[in-house]
């Protein structure tokens, strides 16, 4: 289903509060950022003994919150480039942004609604078969009840995005995704991804799971992670009610350049989609501290959704 970006004005209003939110998120341990544009790489790209780029590291320096989650806000396909402009990273289109008001704080109502609207301006949307348009719309409208990853359940793949930690061994990788307590409420996930040349189990023989059966291989300097064997209990993007079938097949690509890691995921699900859909590239920044560790993530216990009285949501 292709949803149109209906209001540039609303987007512009929303951008200013999202910017301040993004800045606020950096305050604990990172230099103050004035934009959430994808970072440019710097420094050398380390390589393993077999010559591959070494993806090992804690990749949370953009968000770098105490839960270790890579920046969620920069990952909506919109880069807030200044106080006055936002760029849709998929279309390249610029969206006017109202000057950020730093002298008068917004109240919760204004900030929350503006941020929610801005998240919906991104132009990169999956295209569903027409018979599912109403279903997607209803899921989105009723997301407080319907979002399967907002009640301490796993975010699933590819909704989890970039892992906060990657450990690269000669024949496998370990990905860790700490549970999130920001825009969604999820439990911690991990993946062990072999790169030993094995092939997939036939799909019909796999018990569906939240992370699927993942197998990695290298295409030049790009790590390609091919996953299938999912259950149908997750959505595949951050907003929008984008459900999938248990026949979903996800191809993720990871490319390290210096201290950055660029990620895309392509969702193949001919059961429900008219065509494969690829995320707008996301970029994570390596935690620069040489002794950086991933902190324990908080346990998840959701206590709010039963007290929600309106349909309002992100």
């Amino acid at each position: 289903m292709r949803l149109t970006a209906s209001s540039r004005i609303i987007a512009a209003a929303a951008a200013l509060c999202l910017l301040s939110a993004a800045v606020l998120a950096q305050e604990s341990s990172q230099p103050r950022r004035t934009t959430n544009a994808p970072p440019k790489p710097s420094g050398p790209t380390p390589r393993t003994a077999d010559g591959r780029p070494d993806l090992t590291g804690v990749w949370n320096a953009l968000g770098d919150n105490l839960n270790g989650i890579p920046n969620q806000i920069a990952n909506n396909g919109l880069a807030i480039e200044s106080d006055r402009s936002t760029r849709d990273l998929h279309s390249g289109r610029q969206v006017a942004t109202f000057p950020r008001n730093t002298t008068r704080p917004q109240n919760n109502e204004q900030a929350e609604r503006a941020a929610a609207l801005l998240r919906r301006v991104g132009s990169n949307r999956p295209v569903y078969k027409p018979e599912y348009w109403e279903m997607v719309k209803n899921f989105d409208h009723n997301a407080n009840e319907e979002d399967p990853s907002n009640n301490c359940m796993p975010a699933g793949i590819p909704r989890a995005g970039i892992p906060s930690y990657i450990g690269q061994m000669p024949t496998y990788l370990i990905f860790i995704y700490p549970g999130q307590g920001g825009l969604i409420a999820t439990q911690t996930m991990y993946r062990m991804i072999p790169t030993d040349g094995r092939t997939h189990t036939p799909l019909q023989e796999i018990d569906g799971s939240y992370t699927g059966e993942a197998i990695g291989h290298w295409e030049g300097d790009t790590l390609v992670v091919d996953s299938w064997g999912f259950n149908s209990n997750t959505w595949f993007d951050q907003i929008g009610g984008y459900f999938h079938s248990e026949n979903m097949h996800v191809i993720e690509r990871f490319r390290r350049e210096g201290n950055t890691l660029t990620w895309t995921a392509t969702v193949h699900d001919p059961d429900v989609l008219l065509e494969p859909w690829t995320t707008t590239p996301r970029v994570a920044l390596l935690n620069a501290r040489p002794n950086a560790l991933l902190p324990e993530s908080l346990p998840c216990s959701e206590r709010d959704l039963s007290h929600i009285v309106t349909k309002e949501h992100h």
Partner: protein
Amino acid sequence: MTRVRIGALLTVSLCGAALAGQASAHHSIQAQFDINKHITVSGTVARVEFINPHSYLTVNVKDADGKVTRWAFEMAAAGQLRRAGLSRADRGGLKAGDEVTVIALAARDGSNSGLLQELKVADGREFKFTPDPNGN
């Protein structure tokens, strides 16, 4: 079980002031809380829990008849709580039985819950929080 040591006072006041600061969470703030209605609740700390998606402060509140009710307050993100020293009782945090007054946004469903904005401890310490969308 925490023993209620004081007769607690429960007052509810209306406040029309706009809130300062950035707000977001895994749920819409205004879908759950009345951003224009503050409540003030006094009682004793039952427990403090650092959890996702929101940490919680549970308070035992005794009414004039001595009946104890339990209130649950959603708190600021864990990072803010840690920086405020609230993750350890011996570093200036809370422990069960501490006498506290909580100023919170009222729950719109009328339940004994709220979104904590200010926390006042009987020994004079005061904490103020604004929600952060990224869990910091």
